[in-house]
Each structure stands twice: as C-alpha cells, then as structure tokens.
C-alpha cells in the first residue's frame, strides 16, 4: 500500500474501542481464587440442587487434576499469549441488589441504561420486533424479554439459572451430553464455575415465533465470564438464536470461557449466530483484552437434523473456538460460516469440526479471515468421515484477506476419511487488498474508508448473508467500525 494509505490507516489505528466504558454498579464479587469452596459458594449462591453441585465438583476435580499435570495447558494453536493465572481471578460477580429479578421493574436503572447504551433495549415496547433478548452482565442474567409470548408457543427461553430451578429434568438430562466436562481444560473449568447463561427448549413441531438473542457483557474488573448455553430442539422444531458480546477496556486480560451445547432431534433445525466484539486490547501495545476460549458443539441426533453456526468474530485479544457439529442422524446437515477479523495485536485461531457418523450427511464450511496491523489469523478445521458414514459430503472454502504488510493468515485443514464413498472438497485462497483495487475505487470517487468497506464487505458477503436480518445490519456496522481502526 502506498505511503499515504499506510499513514491514513495508521492514524485510524488510534481509534478507540467503542464499548470500552464501565457501568458504576455495586456488585457482589467473590474473592479471587479457585478451590472446592469456590465451587460450593457459587452453587450455594445460586441455590442449586445437590446433583448439580456434585456435577460441578466432579468437573472441578477433573480440572484440578489436569492442572497438576505437566504441560496441561493446551498450547497447540497458532497463538502466542501467557496462560491465565487461574488463582488470580474472581469466578463470580453479580449486580448486588438482587441476583435474580422477577420482572423488568426490579432491574436497576443502571443496568437497563447499560444495555440501552449498547443498543440492546430491554423494555419490550422498545425492543426490536421479533427478537427476544436475554441479557447477561458479568455472571448473571439480567432480564429476558418476551417470555410470555414465547410461552404461548411452548418455547422455553430463560437464563440457565432459572432453567435449573424450573426445569431441572430437562437441564440434567442434556447438559454435558454434547460437551462433557472432560472435553478440554476450559470445558472443565466452565463446568465447575459457570454462573449463568441461556437455556432454550423448543418442543416437537414448534417453529420458534421470533429470533432469540442473548447479550453478554463483562463489567466487573478481574472477573472471568463463564456462561453456558444449552439449546434443545425437539423433533421437527426450528429456532434461530443469536449472541452478542462486549466488555470494557481493561489493562489486564479477562477470561471468557463459555460452553455452548446444541441438541437437534429428527428434522429439527437450529441456527446459531454470534457477533463477538469483546475488548480486543490496546491496538498499539497489545495490552489487555479478552481471552475468548470457548467450546461450542452441536449434535444432529436425529435424521435430517440441521445445525448451522454463523459467526462474526471481531473482538478479543485472543480467540480460540471451533464451533462443531456431530452429524449422527442420517441425512443430517452441518454448516459453519465464519468471518474472523483481527487487527492491531489480535490473534485468532478458529474454525470448526465436522464429524460425519450418519449416512448421506453433509457439511459446508466457509471461513473468511481478515487480518490487518500485526494481527495473526488462523483457520483450523477438522472434517472427519467415520467408517459408517456412507456417501458423506463436505465442502470447505477458506479465504484470507490481508490488509497491509505485517499481518499473517494461516490455514490448517485436517481431513480424516474412513469411508471410501466420501467426497471432501477443500479450497483455500489468500489475497491482499491491492493498490490497484484501492486506486480503482479512488478513481471512482471513493475515499480510503469507503473503498476498504466495500472491498471487505464484498469479501464477507456470503457469510453476512447467513446472518438473521436483525444481526446483519449490526454486523455490517461493526465491520465498518473495525475497518476504521485497521492498520495498513
């Protein structure tokens, strides 16, 4: 890129993270540190049944055993960061006044203002039509809108904590069935200390009448956020779920280690969309920012079930996540559509795992990585065709776009085929936003920003098209804001 463009982009790099403010609200935060007592304390605060405490403790013990081992830390990804100090963070923080609000009237104004400022109005009359929102601040679900309307349709959408109280059997039967606590270090940690999250249950034959959305906000200093999401879609049902997230600017790193589990029965379809915009750290120094280390997995349990993950990852200092699908039912379908945008000192190692077990199962992977500044962006994906998966099909496409000279893009595809009838296709491209492209845009009257926006939006078009309409607008705006700060 020419000097003028580089200078321009460099100047833009100073632009601040938009959501970097904190809310001044008193909270109930437990002391930093992690042992069995911490786990008991969290469980007690949430007034949990005995079985759940036992489950947490098993997970904690597993985590504890892991951390006793040498080289326990999963550092195989193309990422470079200091592992978090698990004893030096707080595992529970809740707005002080009341841990659970029975109605919107009880929610403190500061909290409502917080979400309003993020563009997430919780008062139903102001809320986006057709989107029910569950708002989670630090560890606690603040409010869930449109619950009555959903109940009429038989859809359960509530905080995880409420679900434990009101529908313990559903939770007990399904939690940990897709992501067991032994899955990995962070799944174990989450299972031990998770504080809240969202729960969705769509009964047989029901098409959820609106988009469901959870909005996560880390506010308190020195806390980790560990939420769990569980979505159960019964036979022939449909639900589209979206999650968004932001955090204040902090000098230290904050840990976000979530677990998401999806269960889709026969002919059910679940569409899960994420806009991840955690604080990415200081763009100049790389100081601070969220470590986003997340386990997401869905299972197409029944025949013809379909799970599709769409993600726009623009935030976090470090992102490591591989939303996956186990294609167990015959003719089931798994999809993964991703845009990962890293700039400044951000690093991302993200992709998916598609495990084909049933016959005629199909998976599609389209991943778009964009890097600017000195950022590193990797796609890592596994396509596994089991022996019994007759006529399995996979198509993978991984495209990388580089803005400037100092960033990196990497592709690590893993393919394991155990059945000769499988058809697996993989395509990968890397391109640079070229001087010629920029000049062409300038010659048509477009400035730096408009030109980059057009080029990047063009690059991501297929993915943005997968997002629900309410999210697509937000996604485009977010990409535009991100581009304002991208360095050449």
């Amino acid at each position: 890129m020419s000097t003028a463009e580089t200078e321009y982009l460099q100047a833009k790099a100073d632009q601040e993270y938009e959501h970097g403010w904190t809310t001044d609200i008193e909270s109930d935060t437990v002391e930093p540190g992690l042992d069995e007592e911490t786990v008991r304390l969290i469980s007690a605060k949430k007034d949990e049944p005995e079985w759940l405490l036992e489950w947490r403790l098993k997970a904690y013990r597993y985590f504890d055993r892991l951390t006793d081992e040498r080289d326990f830390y999963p550092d195989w990804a193309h990422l470079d960061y200091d592992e978090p100090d698990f004893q030096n963070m707080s595992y529970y923080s809740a707005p002080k006044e009341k841990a659970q609000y029975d109605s919107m009237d009880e929610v403190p104004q500061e909290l409502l203002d917080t979400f309003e400022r993020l563009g997430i109005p919780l008062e139903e009359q102001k809320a986006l039509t057709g989107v029910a929102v569950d708002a989670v601040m630090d560890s606690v679900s603040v409010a869930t809108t449109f619950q009555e309307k959903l109940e009429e349709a038989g859809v359960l959408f509530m905080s995880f904590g409420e679900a434990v109280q009101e529908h313990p059997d559903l939770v007990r039967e399904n939690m940990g069935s897709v992501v067991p606590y032994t899955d990995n270090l962070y799944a174990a940690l989450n299972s031990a200390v998770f504080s809240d999250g969202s729960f969705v249950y769509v009964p047989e034959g029901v098409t959820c009448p609106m988009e469901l959305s959870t909005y996560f906000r880390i506010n308190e200093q020195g806390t980790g956020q560990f939420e769990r999401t569980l979505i159960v879609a019964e036979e022939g049902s449909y639900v589209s779920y979206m999650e968004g997230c932001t955090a204040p600017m902090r000098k230290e790193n904050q840990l976000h280690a979530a677990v998401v589990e999806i269960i889709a029965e026969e002919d059910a379809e679940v569409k899960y969309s994420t806009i991840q915009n955690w604080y990415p750290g200081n763009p100049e120094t790389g100081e601070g920012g969220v470590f986003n280390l997340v386990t997401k997995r869905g299972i197409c349990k029944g025949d013809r079930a379909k799970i599709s993950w769409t993600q726009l990852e623009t935030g976090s200092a470090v992102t490591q996540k591989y939303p996956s699908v186990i294609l167990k039912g015959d003719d089931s379908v798994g999809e993964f559509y991703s845009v990962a945008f890293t700039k400044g000192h951000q690093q991302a190692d993200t992709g998916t795992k598609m495990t084909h077990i049933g016959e005629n199962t199909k998976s599609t992977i389209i991943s778009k990585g964009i890097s600017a500044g000195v950022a590193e962006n990797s796609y890592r994906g596994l396509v596994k065709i089991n022996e019994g998966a007759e006529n399995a099909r996979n198509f993978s496409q991984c495209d990388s776009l580089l803005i400037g000279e100092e960033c990196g893009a990497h592709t690590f595809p893993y393919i394991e085929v155990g059945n000769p009838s499988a058809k697996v296709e993989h395509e990968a491209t890397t391109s640079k936003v070229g001087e010629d492209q920029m000049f062409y845009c300038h010659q048509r009257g477009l400035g730096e920003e408009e030109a980059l926006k057009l080029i990047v939006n063009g690059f991501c078009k297929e993915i943005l098209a997968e997002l629900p309409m309410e999210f697509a607008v937000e996604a485009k705006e977010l990409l535009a804001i991100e581009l304002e700060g991208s360095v050449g």
Partner: protein
Amino acid sequence: MPLLEIEDLHIGIEDTEILRGVDLNADGGEVHAIMGPNGSGKSTLAKVLAGREEYEVTQGSVHYDGEDLLEMEAEERAQEGVFMAFQYPVELPGVSQQNFLKESVNAVREAQGKEELGAADFIKMVREKSDLVDLDEALTKRSVNEGFSGGEKKRNEIFHLAMLEPRLAILDETDSGLDIDALRIVADGVNQLRDSDRAFVIITHYQRLLNYIEPDYVHAMVDGQIAKTGDKSLAVELEERGYEWLSGDGVAESKASEGNASENGAATEPEEAAVA
C-alpha cells in the same frame, strides 16, 4: 481558460524520466487522441492525470478547471469530474456493481453539491446508461468486473463513464484487446456521450478506433513529448509512416537520435511494469 491545461509536464518514476515536457490543452466538447508507440509515456500521462501516486512530478503543472490538479487526491479528482477508463479494469470480488456505483455516483454528486440519488432514480439511471453503452443488464448486477470477459470489462468502463458523467474523460487504451464488434460498441457509447461540456482524451495505439470516434485533435507522443499535433489526418499518417520520422524531428532537441533511442528503450520498462 481551457478545462485541462498541461504545461511543460515532466514525470519520473524512480530515476527514469518518462514524460519530458508535455503541453496540452483540452476544452469541453473536444476530443483529443494521443497516439504513440509503446513506452512513449502516453499511459503514464493518463495515470498521472487520474492521480496514481507512484509517479513523481519533477517539473511543470496541470490545471483542471483553473485548479491545480496535481494537488488533489485521486478521489477528489474523480469527484470533481475527472474520469479514467482503465486499460486493465480491476476486479472487486463480491462487491456488487450496483452498490459500488451507487456509492460512487453519490460521492460525486455530494462533492458537487447535488442531492443523493434515491434507489428508484438510481435503478432507472442504471437501466438508461447500460442501454446507452449496450451493456447486458445482467452485468450491472454482478460483482465489479469479476469474471467479465476482456470486452465486457472495457464496455463496463464506458458504462461507469456514462454513470458518472464526468467533465474530463480519459480513455486509456480502451480499444486494446477488443475485436471489431466490441470496438464499434465502445466507440458508439463514447460518441453518444460526446457533449459540448465534456472533454475526451483518448489514448490509443492504433488508428482504427479513430475510424469510429472522430477526434478534433491528434497528438503524436514520442519519447515523452508531444512530437506533433494535427487533425484526424495525422492519425492516418502515423498508421502509415510509424513514429520514427518524428523522433529525429528536432522535437526531442539535438541529442535526440542515438542517445534518445536507448533512453526510450529504458523508459519502456517502468511503464510496462506499472501497468502490469
């Protein structure tokens, strides 16, 4: 005051001088053709006028509508009505022509103090202008130049020209690589866009384009200078006689002959490199 006024323009890239004192005036309503052999500097002139940054202006000036053109950013020039049809139009994957042109047309309109064009008016304009240059309407809905044939790309440039309604239109070897039918269509489009307020600077290698677009002036460019200016008959003469008779014509000063030939050769490479 002419719309475009180029005075004693010297342009270099790295240590090589490509333009060595170019003078040219063009006014609204006029069509100027610049012809010349490879490496004579004609494409460089086009790119410098459009605002490409890697060239260094070592001497001289360019005024557009009385303003110092060389001081303006490329997008500013475009917004003020300078348009260049590219010799090699650039592909923008995933960027729809409609989006691209809507932003483009409105950036130009905004700079000129006009109201933003609404969606309905825009669509209408796309239809009219694509008809004018005989561009398949389906191409107006695709990504910019992506997967277009060579001829389609060139025609698309003329479509952009029609959409942006510039005051100064520079065509950089738009005829190269076109078969005779495509050439005729492009020329037809240009002829329809001729206007008493609009100046054309048409850069071409061959005289054949000028059979379809009748120029008011033909300039022969040799060794980074305009060696001769005439009317359309000069184009025919150049086609017949080539350019060699011009290089020793005292235009390139006395030391022309041998020393010049090698400089000429040296100048070829950077230009080709910049174009590639």
